[in-house]
């Protein structure tokens, strides 16, 4: 190739030029005057030996110490967790106590309201259907039980 031929030519010229060091080459001042080469090689003294034998040193904390440390780490968290669980249980008991104390009051209020509303609706129904023969006001749909909790509020 052209590059190879040129390289051969330059090398030959470099050999000619090196014999007369005072003369600069025609190819430019970047051409080195000396022909000492830099090579990549091993460091002086050679490389160190490759380690191939297994090396598992038997040092560090023992099994018991490791378990004890793990246990301490977990106990630290358990302390706060259990304290929180106990507090939560006490709070739930308190809330339950409050709610069950006022439940009869609220249920009685609702019963009173329902009974009054039911009476009002029955009266309205009686007035509307007074001319219809054999009409039972608020006829129960169930015959085995007296009361079935309604799924929705009565329509007013």
């Amino acid at each position: 190739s052209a590059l190879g031929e040129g390289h051969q030519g330059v090398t030959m010229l470099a050999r000619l030029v090196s014999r007369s060091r005072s003369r600069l080459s025609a190819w430019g001042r970047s051409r080195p005057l000396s022909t000492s080469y830099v090579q990549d090689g091993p460091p002086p003294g050679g490389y160190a030996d490759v380690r191939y034998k297994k090396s598992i040193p038997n040092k560090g904390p023992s099994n018991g110490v490791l378990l004890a440390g793990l246990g301490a780490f977990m106990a630290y968290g358990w302390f706060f967790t259990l304290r929180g669980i106990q507090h939560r249980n006490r709070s739930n008991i308190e809330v339950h106590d409050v709610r069950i104390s006022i439940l009869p009051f609220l249920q009685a209020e609702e019963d009173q309201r329902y009974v009054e509303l039911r009476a009002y609706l029955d009266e309205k129904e009686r007035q509307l259907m007074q001319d219809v023969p054999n009409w039972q006001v608020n006829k129960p749909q169930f015959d085995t039980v007296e009361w079935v909790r309604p799924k929705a509020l009565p329509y007013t």
Partner: protein
Amino acid sequence: MAPADFGEKNPPKSNDLYATAKFIGDRCFDENLAFFKCKDAHGHPARCLDQGQAVRKCAFAVMNDVQKKAPKELKAYSDCLHDNGLKLDRCRHVQKAFEEAVFTDALAALWRQPPCRATAVIP
């Protein structure tokens, strides 16, 4: 002007009930138990109107007593509960002031008794 009494004309709100619930539960235990027993026996609400009336009368009486004794503390506790979604854990400081103002020696003695209500034999 004193705050209005609790009654049919002035029903209590949820925060008032939550605030006085412990006192209601303590003083109206018999009425509440009778109402629950009636409800167990009957389904229709019309069968337990009398017991319900007694329950409400007792609750109103307790709430009015508490309001007469410490109206400001009751209002403070009620408002705190209203602002915090009826969460008791968020109003401890106000609850302390309220209960210290309302607790009487008789009631405190009742609290110091062994827990008999929870383990009472219900005849």
